[in-house]
Each structure stands twice: as C-alpha cells, then as structure tokens.
C-alpha cells in the first residue's frame, strides 16, 4: 500500500489520569448519545496490591491501522481512505459488521446494542475536523496534554517509534497508527518498609485488629475486578463496566 499519508495518535500514558475528558469531547462533537457507542474508550485499572499498587490507563480510539484487518473482513462496508489513512465505516452498510468487529484486536468497532444486526460505528479520526484544519477533538481535550496527533513520520520524529504498550495487542498484527509512551517506574524518595506498614495498619489500639495477616490485604484475587482492560467485551454491559471510572 503506497501513495497515501498516514496520520496517527500519540498517547502518553504517564500523563493520563483517565478523567475521560477526551471521551466526553468525542461524544459531544460527534453527536453520540450516552451509551455503548464509545468510539473512544479510556480504560483505568489497577495492578499490584496495597501498598505497591499502580494505576494503568489506556487510550483506545481506532488506531486507523496500516494493516486494517477490519476492512478486509467488512465485505466492502469499510474503507481506508488515502488523505489521512483514516479507516471509515460506510454508514449505509453498517448493519452487518460483527465479523469486522471481531477482526479488530482493539475492539474499535462498537454497536448501538447487543442485537446481532445492531448498527456499528467507530472513530472517524475526526476527518471532518481535519478537513477544516482542526485536530481530532480528543487530542484538544486533554487537561494534562497527554495526547498529540499528526503525520506518523512527524510523531516518530517527536516521540520515537514505540507502537506497543502493555495490555494492548502486539502492533505487528495490524500496524496501528499510534505512538505510545508508557508510564515509568515508581521510586522511593524516602525509604518505605511495606511489610512494616502492613503490620502497623492492622492495629488500631486499643480498638480491635483490622486484619490478621498481610495476605488479607495483598491477596486480591477474586475481589478486585478492574485489574485489566477489556478491549473486546462480550456485550455492552461489560463494555460499560470496564470503561467506567471509579473516581466518583
């Protein structure tokens, strides 16, 4: 595939607070109502256990892949256009896209409901805005300026060429038009003995003990559910659960 220009996104995970300003901006601009038509999904989930816990975030619009496997699976209902490399659904043929959706490893194609023939839609890269020399609405919305957008060559020059990020499928499958910066390691600015802290925090003298062993706190299996993203949910309810933020 030659003779087209590929534009793409830059996502700096180390700056993302998962506030979903970009998600709301996307729906607002694109006239999408509340519900499962989430063209852009932001996931927030935790790894590790108290007190060594981390928040991971993912920004997942359509990455308008250079190898758009969805287009191949869409029987002519989807296109990859040439000016920006945007992958588009033909709205006139949007009722038969379950196969195309299944092909996308990022889950970028979303449906109005769980009905088999529900209308599909997806991120358009805001081609309407690009045509007016405006940026995709999501990247203009980030309070911590975690996002950028541009020609892939320019993004690589600015931010390097990492297109893989923990918990996203390997970029080799579809060649996503995206550059990522993963969040960094935490450090101990001052020493902190987690084992001692777990002993201290169990006690509330002279009142009763709060828990009896560190594993009561650190063995999270089965209790914490938001410990992973859900790129390919089984249904709209699961999509909603995994894209809801709990900071409220």
């Amino acid at each position, binding site marked *: 595939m*030659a003779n087209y220009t590929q534009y793409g996104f830059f996502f700096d995970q180390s700056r993302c607070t998962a506030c979903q300003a970009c998600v709301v901006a996307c729906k607002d601009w694109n006239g999408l*109502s509340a519900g499962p038509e989430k063209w852009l999904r932001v996931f927030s989930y935790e790894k590790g256990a108290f007190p060594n816990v981390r928040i991971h975030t993912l920004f997942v619009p359509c990455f308008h892949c250079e190898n758009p496997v969805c287009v191949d699976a869409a029987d002519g209902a989807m296109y990859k256009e040439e000016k920006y490399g945007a992958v588009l659904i033909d709205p006139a043929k949007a009722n038969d896209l379950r196969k195309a959706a299944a092909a996308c490893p990022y889950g970028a194609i979303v449906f109005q409901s769980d009905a088999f023939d529900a209308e599909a839609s997806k991120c358009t890269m805001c081609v309407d805005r690009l045509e007016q020399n405006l940026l995709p609405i999501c990247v203009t919305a980030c309070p911590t300026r975690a996002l950028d957008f541009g020609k892939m060559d320019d993004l690589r020059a600015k931010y390097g060429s990492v297109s893989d990020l923990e918990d996203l499928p390997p970029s080799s499958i579809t060649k996503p038009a995206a550059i990522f910066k993963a969040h960094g390691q935490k450090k101990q600015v001052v020493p902190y003995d987690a084992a*001692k802290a777990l002993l201290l925090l169990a006690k509330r003298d002279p009142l009763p003990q709060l828990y009896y062993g560190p594993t009561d706190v650190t063995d999270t299996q089965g209790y*914490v559910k938001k410990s992973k993203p859900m790129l390919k949910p089984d249904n709209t309810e699961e999509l909603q659960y995994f894209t809801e933020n709990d900071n409220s």
Partner: protein
Amino acid sequence: MLVRPTKVETPQAPPPSISYKPPLSAEVKTRVDEIVQQRKALHDGETVVYAAGCGINCGGGGGWDSGCLFKVHTKNGVVTAVEGDDTVNQNSPREDNNIDSVMKVALQRRPCVRGRAWKGDIYSPSRVTFPMKRLGKRGEGKFVRISWDEALTTVANKIVEIRDKYGPYSIFSVYDSYPAPVTYANAGFGGWATASFEATAFAAQYMTGGYSWTSYAAAEGPDAFNSKLIVLQGFDPTSSIFMVFTQYYYALAHEKGIPVIVIDPRYTSAAEVFGDQWIPIRPGTDVAFLLAVANVLFKEDLYDKDYVSKFVEPVGFSKWKDYVLGNSAGPDGAIDRTPEWAEKICGVPSETIREFARLYAKSKPTHWNVSWSFARLAYGENPARAAAALQAMTGNIGISGGGGEFAGGWVARGAYRGVSLDWGRTAATYKAPTLFMNWKWADMVLLREKFESGELSKEQYHSMIGNPATNPTPNAKMLFTSKNIMNQNININKQRQAMNKLDFIVATTIHMTPTAKMADIVLPVADTMFEDYFFAGGPLYSPKLVNPPGEAKAKLWIDTKLAERLGVLDKFMPKYTSDDNFDAMIEDVYKAGFEAWAKANGVNLSWDEYKVKPIIRVEASAPYSVPLQDYIQKGKAFSTSSGKLEIYSKYLAETDLTKTKYGGPIAPMPVYEAPWDGFFDPQVNKYPLTCMTPHGVYRIHSVQDDNPSLRNETYRHAIWLSVSDAKVRGIKDGDMVRVFNDVGEMVIPAYVTSKIVPGTACLYQGAWFEPTASGVDRRGAPNALTHDKPNPSGAWPFHTNVEVEKF
C-alpha cells in the same frame, strides 16, 4: 473535417477492481468523500462563540476555581457542542512542546471533563423549566406548574407576612444568599463557616491575621519548577480541579525530575501521574504525621532559625516546641511526639517519617500543598495549622518554590483582578446579621422549641448553633435556597426534619435537586450560556448565547421582579425599564464595567472586540508571584498582634470562647486531638470503617450529578472498600452493598480496590440523595451518613464511620 476513426477492436477492459484500501478505486473515493461530507454536515450552520464556564460552583476566571474557556456551538437556539479554548497554541495539543508558552502561562484554558459535558447538564432531564408550586408532601417531588406572576407574588407576600409576624430574623439562607430584595424589605439573616475551607481560613486568620484564602492560595504556575520537593497531602488536583492548569504544572514539575511525594489515604490519579512515591496514611491522622515531622526537625536541629527569628512570633513558637517535644501537655497529656508515637496513629512507619523530615529539611524550597480537604473534619483546624507551622519553621512561606500551606493550586498572573458592575443601587439600610454556623442550621430550627419552652437558656441555644451570646436570637421560618444545601450539608436526615418545621421554602434552582423537592415554590433559574456572567477575575466573560429552556430566567431578573413586588425596585434595580429591555440593560452594565476595568488596567480593547473573545491573558514572567511574598520578601508586617506569623494564638488561649460564635474551646496552637467520627472514635466498634467523602472527578460538589453524559456513562458511583475489608465481609467488586450507621443508610455498588488504606471507605461527595419511603438512599449521598456534632472552629466534619454489608 471530422474524420471517423477507424474502428479498432480493443480487448474488453476488466471489470473495475474495487479497492477498499489505498490506492482506492474512483468509485470508493467518491463514496469516501460523501462520508466525510456527511460528518461535516453535523455542524453545518452553527454559530460559534467563546464563553467562560462552567458557571455553577466552579466558574471560570481563576479567582473562582478553574478559569476555563469554552468555544460553544449553537444552532436554532440550543447549544449543540462545546470545544475548548483554542485562542493560543492552536493545533498544538501538547502545549509543552512550546515551553515558552508554559513559562509565560500563555496556555489554553481547557475545560476538564465536567466542562466538556456541560451540554449534558444544561439539558438534563431534571432541569426545571417552569415555576412550580408543591402539591404533595415535602420531598415527594409532586409539583404543579404555575405562572411567574403567581410564583413571585406568592413569594413576595410570604416575605411580608413572615417578616410582620415573626420579625426580621425569620427569613434566612444557609450557606447561600437570599434574594437581595429581602434585605431591602428590612428582613433576613445569614450564617457563617464555609464548607470548602473553614479550617484552612481559620488557620490563615490566626496565623497571619487575615481570614482569606485567595491571597494565600497559590503561586503562578511556573513557580512549581523552582521547588526542590513537592508534597501533596490529601490533595488530588485531578479531581479537585482548582485552576485549570494546576494538574498540568504538577505533571511538568514531576517530569522535570522534581521529587513529588503524595501522602493520601488513597492511591489517587495524582499519586499515579505526578507522584514519585505514595505514602499511604489513615484519614484524619495527618496531624500526627505533621507533629512527628516537627519533632524530628526540633530534635535534630534542622529548622530554619534565621527565618523563624525574623518572621515567627517567638513566645508562641517555644510553647509549640514544648508541646511537640512533650515538655508541656496537650489535650492527651505531655507526650514526646516522635515518629514512633505517630506511626501507631497514622500508619506511616517511623523510619519513613524520620527520613521524610530529614529530606524535607534539606530540600528548600519545598512546596507542600495540603489543600483544604484534609482539614474538613472534626478538629480540622489542627492539621491546617500544623502544616502551616511546618512551612513556617522551615522558612518555606512566602518564598519562590515554597508555599502551598493554606490551600489552592497554581494560577495565572492577573487572575484576581475582577470587574465591578454598577447597577446604580441605593444601599439597603437594613444590615443582615450573622446568627448561626451554616451547618448547624437544622439545630437552629429544631432546638427552637426547647429554647421557647425554657428547657434551653438563650445562652445555651446560641452556643449550640454558633451564635455569639450578645447577638439577637433567630426565629427561622422562611428559607431561601439556590444551592443543593440539604444534600451537601452535614446530616441530611436532620435537615429534612428541620425543613418540615419551616413555614415556607423557596428554591431558586436549575435542576430538581433533593433540596428543591422540599420547597413550596420552585423558581427555574438560567445558568451560564443562558445569561450574561462575569467571572471573578481574569476577567472572563460568558455572554448569553441562547434563551434558557422553558421559562427559566436569569437570577437577576427573578430578584428584580421580586423587588418590584416588594416596592423596592427603585432602590434595587433603578435601571430597569421593561422585560424587553432587560438583556440590553445587563449588557450596558457589563460594558461599562469592562470599560472601566480596561482603562484601569491599561488594556486597549473595545467591548465589541472583547465580547467575541472574552479572555485577556497577561503573560507571566520570572520572578513569579508567590503567596505572602510581600510579608517575607518586603518585610510587610503580618496583621497579627505581633506582626509576625503566630503559631500560638493568645486570643484563643485567653478568651472564653463559649460566649463567642465558636461556642466552645479551641486549642490555641496545632495539637493532636483524635477527631470524632474518625479512625479512633470508639464508635468504630459498631461502625468499623472510616469513610472519607472527597471531591470526585465528575461533579462540582453536587452540580452535574444528573448529567447523562457523565453519570453511569463515564463513571460508576460506588463505595471504595479495601481488599481486606471486602474479604472479611464477603464483598466482591460490583456487589450491591448496604452502607449504614446510626444516622442513615444507603444501598449502592462496591468498588473493591488496593488503592485505599485498610479500615477506610471512600464515598465521593455530591451524589443526590434519593430516599425510599423508609429513608434508604439509593444513590449514595455521603451526608446521609454524616453527624453534625458541633466543631467550634467551624470546620465541617465530613468524615463518618460506617459499616458495610452485602445487600
């Protein structure tokens, strides 16, 4: 001459190959163009106007919280889309690629997620669009539409009737202002104590001599880069969004390698994104941590003696030193406040506290932002004052790279230069007195009977409601409310009882909130985008963009029509001629205000130019302004009696505070007092989880709780439980749980997480109380569970202890 070409037999062209990927076939190209045009058509014919917002309890302008700028699309009289500020750095989403604009604070004032969702709120299903009167019982939500004339006439008649029957101190507002015309009608009284920052303002008042927060709140953004250490204690600027750039500057400071330590009961987004390290601490125990840090600084002789001798009042300082070292007694006796003492309370290992103190002492300047949140509990004045005392003893107040002790975040230059509007009013001769502590208003109503029967003396009654002994006694009968006070004030159930005792309640409201449901008359009010607004500073202006939905009216119009009916129009709104001219009258006043402001500030901009781009950026440059700099760098005397920073207040020590508005004793200096409704309150035997009620990301207090673009869309409102607490109760993430204590109960989902200290729960404030017939809240309003036991300093006790069980 036309020559007929020789017919040549050419082979039949193959059928056009349809390519859906580049290079596209012509047919597909055409279709793609059509699809792009369809997308563009969505915004055809829209008008685009800049406006400041959100106006409700956040409001732009820098002086009041955020200072965002919107680019609003409207069509056919409705708001259709909201873009963010693009008046600078257009097409540069990552603005720090242009570091110059960061250093000048010449940045986009991008709205947060709440601003992005503003359209959803202003058209939400609970929007009130017509004046109404109550039909059913208070709280039932049964109303019937009435005309504005009937609504206003009823309200005006009630004002006169109640004033004449019960005297002037019968009409009131809680944490709010009743309509100004009431004052012109010689009635009304108000309360004191602010929910957000009472403890922090108290600290500022007794330590610096000025009850204020704006002038102490914040430095200019780039000053963050001058810090050697940044500590965020109880402060999450990603949810408590105070000034739009604050979280951005913290992110950049962190990226520059300035160490950032986050001390919080939760692993917040701030801890993840800005923090190098999270130090978990039990809620409400911050003062133990702070005193132990002071203890190390004293014992290891690590504080700034030169600064202290210049700027800190010495007698009080040595009294506090004696207390911290255990040479004199506090409320719990004479105890050496060592890290080993503190660790048992706050749960931070003593080694960590000690090393933290040493690092802090050698990292000057340190910016230590304790926000207001960790002081919103019983005895909240203690942590607020202790944090400031530490920053004083290390010489971090009033210097570049320091500060953060009294609140706030970072702002832009010029943020507090407001525009004054001249309505041509004659000042009212009646002066409304302050007769109660805002969050004690329900007691003011409910205890009145006991006062009347003689069971309570006047002095006792006053003392219990935060009213000085020498003041008149309130006789509260008629309540004006324009805020969701019942929801946001402590102890909802007690307030419901009190509301049922009142003769008349008027709610001026945008939405049908739980508070509005209790009203007798509901007046629909417009908000930003539906009426003109100037925000506190900046200045930022938000023009009226479209007509409000239904018959909603600007607050000023409502007040004006009320004034007319009370016969005080000439004093309150002399410029008013007719409804048709109302918008023009407002614009004239705004225009005059702006022009005077522009002249005084040397801004060469006409009103018409300003109206289409209502933001004025004054570029910042080094040295950046920092709070209290005049006192430290220019030697201006503090307004305390000694002229210095006072850690110990002689007034608080020597005055019988029971006769004052405080109604009870307050420690004269920051000391450890275990807060009731806290981690060590014996009630944890019954209700073992200490529940914090902080700001969430998706509401501005209770504003936007019914926004369909946010609620159950971008977030789930659930109670946070730690893994160990969930496990012992057999609760998994997503389970519905019953949360209860002796004052209330609710049923909501559980969020099980490792991001919170064990023994602690967290329920974000602002969800709207939605009781079943038996009073069980189905929506998770924290104040269904908070107690209103008096706290003399006025700090609102927003913590509570609860039990949680699987529903």
